[in-house]
């Protein structure tokens, strides 16, 4: 099993959610994170004087799936989260050794959904 950990633009979340739904992926966990990378910081103003917020609001999705689904999920995210501008984000694939469903104690892939 793998965890697909995707950092996306918050405003793209509804689209990403839908395209994941289309390939049957419902379960996921999200976090509000802040990030920096190629995208330039955000210029903000206070009393009309500018200052730069370096860390930008991003949303992180963590989706644990069986190995066979990884490419499908990656494609779904890339297609729905892309704008082509710097700041679209990254996907990291993390190995997962086991999964437990707290409600039942089930293990491994049967615990996933």
């Amino acid at each position: 099993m793998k965890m697909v950990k995707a950092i996306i633009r918050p405003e793209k979340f509804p689209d990403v959610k839908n395209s994941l739904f289309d390939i049957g992926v419902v379960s996921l966990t999200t976090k509000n994170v802040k990030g920096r990378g190629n995208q330039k910081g955000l210029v903000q103003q206070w009393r009309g004087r500018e200052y730069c917020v370096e860390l930008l609001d991003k949303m992180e999705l963590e989706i644990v799936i069986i190995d066979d689904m990884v490419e499908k999920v990656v494609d779904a995210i890339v297609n729905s989260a892309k704008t082509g501008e710097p700041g679209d984000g990254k996907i990291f694939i993390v190995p997962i050794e086991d999964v437990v469903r707290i409600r039942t104690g089930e293990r491994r892939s049967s615990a996933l959904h």
Partner: protein
Amino acid sequence: MEYVSIDSLNVYFFMWAAVLVFFMKAGFVLLEIGQIRRKNVAAHMSLKFLDMSIVLIAYLFVGYAVSYGMQYLWGTLVPGGVDTGSFAHYIKMVMFAIAAVTIVTGAVAERIKTSGYVIGALMIGAVIYPIIESFAWGSSGFLANIGFHDFAGAGVVHLVGGVLGLTAAAVLGPRKGRFKNGKPIPIPGHDVTYVVIGAFILAFGWYGFNIGSAAFIAGDGSNIASVAIATTMALAGGTLAAALVTKGDPIWCANGMCAGLVAVCAGADMFSPLNALVVGSFAGLQTPFVFRFVEECGIDDTCGVIPVHAVSGLWGVLAAGLFIPAISLMSQAISAVVIILVAGVSGLVVYGSLKKLGLLRVSENAEDIGLDEYLYEMNVYPEIPIGRES
């Protein structure tokens, strides 16, 4: 011992009232921003500053003259000008004017352009509202002549503001995401506490509005005391009725309280306490239902201006005719129709033209990222992380 002249007492009385009415502005700001999303709060507050300052100026130069006589045109209401006796009246009426104008923001929040909104406010404050004011309250206004009784502006202020808000909301169209396949989807505001505190500030100022609508304090003072009682009972009825039909939801209690206060305005000088209780209760009662109905019609009335100001204002005008023998229901009804027509048509013309000129609605992008970011690159609560599911 020297004694006090009637004039000096009444002028002081008007000042007291006008200052309370001025403070309603803070109530409107809180009531409204509580019902919108955080990303548009700064822009909304900017609208409130702009409409207030522009109308204060426009009413001095033009509006007051339109309402009360052309001798006051271009600010001749100055020391050494035509009529020192009008000073106190002017200051009271200009505060009424800024209240009337600012009702509209509640209906158009989160999507209107600053330019369009300000032009609209200027038209209303300088011309539309004063015209209706002159009909009802001007010397020999034609509604006054047919017996229209609108003590504290249920019609002149609230029905006008509410109908203008309705036209503006209709012309603007709903916020993005407000309807899905025609089904209304609520867009929660960001702060229920602000809604409640805003309503209490409004109610506080409303006492100035209503009591201060008396032309003078009678010898035994009973005229202003009975207005205060009617206002209080309407406020209680509006709150309680709204609470009963919504299990005490504080947003509706706040709106119901305001609705009761709107409705009592027309006859606050003549309603018995029981009349006022009934009138206010009905106003509070209808608020959630009318809001729902307006939604079903596809109109996005962000802060509930239509039930609270338009419908309660209309109800108040009619209720004065229904409950008070000395007031003709027919005159009230005719006047209401005239007001709705004048305000409705002007609203459609003004906001329709602004739309044509591309001055009415912000771009979809601006709406998405939020007006504060778009206009000011501003985060209104810079230390609170953003928690809304987008």
